[in-house]
């Protein structure tokens, strides 16, 4: 009466298996939902925001959430908190994408070359990466912004530079593992150009660990942008960013806590979501472990 073999073990493609494993835990689904909501918020902020995030109304200062016409209340200058939060999501998203982009741009190719070719390529690039890694990440970003001047672009570049050695390390390690595989050896033995090997054979095989690293980096980038803006080194007033909202709220914490609570919860939730997604990705790629 048995119905062996089950269809699943036979036909499940790697992609389907990944999706099944990733969407299994509720935390992953929830985190993904949070990120999607912020993605939509960031893209559609001009249409979703009930008010102009910069328009002040001194007569409507420090309204509590759920006040008349202001779902999340207003700040010390009477600006709508929800609108600022939505526009702040744009800044956070832009900062994350740009800095991760800079990190990939600077880290990926040297890592592939170093991993595949070894020799002096590896020696030179790895020492540079070690040097960059020896700085505490936020301190390095602070120093870069300090020299280049405080604005969002510089802050994003600075965070990107922080990512370069981290991406480099992950990709290089993955490349080192792949280069020993026989299909690479075979490819080289028939004279395939290095660039082709990298693109065709190595890159697809390092994407999984890279994807995990990228999602974790998103979380860090959002946190770092908030930190820099909190310190006045990122987004310049009056433009909203979650970090600058927090800093403005903190200055008047005594009068009302809401302008602190709202951006804080937002940053915590978003960074947590990035990290949960990162963990979920790392659990869902590669071979199935410990399952019957």
């Amino acid at each position, binding site marked *: 009466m048995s119905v062996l073999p089950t269809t699943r073990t036979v036909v499940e493609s790697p992609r389907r298996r990944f999706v099944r494993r990733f969407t299994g835990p509720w935390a992953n689904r929830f985190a993904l939902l949070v990120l999607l909501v912020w993605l939509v918020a960031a893209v559609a902020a001009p249409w979703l925001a009930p008010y102009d995030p910069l328009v*002040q109304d001194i007569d409507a200062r420090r309204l509590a959430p759920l006040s008349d016409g202001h779902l999340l209340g207003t700040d010390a200058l009477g600006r709508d908190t929800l609108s600022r939060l939505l526009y702040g999501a744009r800044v956070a998203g832009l900062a994350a994408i740009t800095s991760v982009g800079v990190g990939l741009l600077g880290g990926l190719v040297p890592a592939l070359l170093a991993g595949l070719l070894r020799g002096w390529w590896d020696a030179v690039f790895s020492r540079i990466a070690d040097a960059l890694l020896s700085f505490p990440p936020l301190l390095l970003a602070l120093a870069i912004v300090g020299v280049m001047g405080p604005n969002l672009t510089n802050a994003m570049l600075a965070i990107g530079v922080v990512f370069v050695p981290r991406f480099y390390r992950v990709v290089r390690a993955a490349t080192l593992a792949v280069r020993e595989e026989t299909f690479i050896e075979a490819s080289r033995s028939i004279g395939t150009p290095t660039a082709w090997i990298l693109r065709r054979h190595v890159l697809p095989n390092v994407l999984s660990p890279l994807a995990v690293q990228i999602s974790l980096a998103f979380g860090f980038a959002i946190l770092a942008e908030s930190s820099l803006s909190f310190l006045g080194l990122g987004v310049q*007033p009056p433009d909203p960013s979650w970090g600058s909202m927090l*800093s403005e709220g903190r200055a008047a914490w005594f009068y009302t806590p809401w302008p602190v609570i709202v951006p804080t919860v937002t940053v915590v939730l978003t960074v947590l979501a990035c990290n949960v997604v990162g963990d979920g990705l790392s659990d869902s790629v590669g071979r199935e472990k410990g399952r019957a």
Partner: protein
Amino acid sequence: MKRIPALAALACLALTAACGSSGGSGSGDPDPNAVLRYTTSAGATSFDPHKTVAASDFIVLNLVYDRLVHQDAQGQPVPGLAESWEFSDDFKTLTFHLREGLSFEDGTPFDAEAAKANLDRAREPDSISASLLSAVDSVDVVDPATVKLNLNSPGVHLVLTLSDLAGMMVSPKAFATPDAAKALATDSDGIGRFTLAEADPGSHYVFEAVKDYWDKDALKLGGLEFSVATDPQTNLNAVSSDQADCALVSPAMIAPAEQIPGATTRARTVLTQTVLYFNQTKSEFDDPLVRRAINLAIDRDAILEGAQEGKGEASQGLFPSDYFVSNDPVADLVTYNQDEARDLLKQAGLEKGFSFTAVTLTIPQFVTTAEIIKAQLAEIGIDMEIKALPPADMGVNFLKGTGDAVITAWTGRPDPSMLFSAYFDEAAPQNVSHVEPEGFDEALAAANAIEETAARGDALAAVQKVVLEAGAVVPVTFNQVGTVCNDRVTGYEPTVVGISEFRGVGMTD
């Protein structure tokens, strides 16, 4: 049974607390060895009172340099290193009789020669006080305890002028050579209540009390530790967690400061004011119509409410409303009127607006002020970009040409003529554009020839009119500032000028 001792202890505690806070300040005799820890928002850029570029350095420098003349809490002149002074009948010579038997930190005796050397140095072209002392032609040593200032025009203003940086006395040895003068920037050498023992420039200073200081009533401490934190909340937290005994309280922090248990807040509206000041060589600011338009486009009440929690006063001119110089003549130059502002811009050919960059301090009050001004200027089509810089760099950078205008605090000056000379005299180093309003010199000279207060007030009001008709500055708000001190601190009184000198302040055990 066990409850009784606990209750008794509680009652004792309540009693002690009640006693401790009664009167708002400590009881008993001050401890002469106590070290007062003060935390505030800015340090000193230089310990050279004559060659510094920041008038606000007075806040730190008054601890280590006595002046010829001192000020009381009401901003009136009282004897300092000079025991007395007198004018000639035409106010064209001013004679100081110096205190005898004093010497500088390095042992050099203080006498008329030393005073002359200092006054001459304060008049050198690169001195911050040069324009304030432009009425002085020469300085004569009459005898070892008397100096005479020969003036080119009546100089009623000079007495209070010499109670500021201009009147600080530095040991002549300390500026005898260029190298020595350079060292003066980081270490003081004067006669004062304290000497500088340790300095992390811009963040932390340790001062030790001078033994046998000449004014026993002014010095009741063994030392003073001076810390700098730009964040006002951090300063308050320092007092509530007993990491500081006193902290500067800015307008928005008065209400939170009043909630700190075991501490007393004393604040008043002072001469320190928030202004928007133009670099007239940049953007569109060479046109007086544009500058006047901005003066009319600012709703100062909104700024007072939004940036200062209503603590202080919306400016109606360059002086607070109860001051002896009236703001009436300039009322229509600074009263909020958007339509007229638009008209003026149109006359200037800028009906489509323009953009400029304003630098400001990273201190929350100033960032908020800038944000409100930005929003108000946007309504008449002017786009203002805000660039916030740390207090240590901001002033210097603006003077070097960063930004087109600055939103900052002008620290209170004991005599109104000092404010005028420092920012509107074309030779003044702080007058970034080196442009002078027409008729300024004559109006100011007239005011400085009158000793009687009411009449002098009228003459100074006329100077104010000259300045604001040229739109040379946008007065914004006056600040209510003061200090919150724990209840061990005695004798603190906020001054009308707005700078806490801590003269006569002590601490009980």
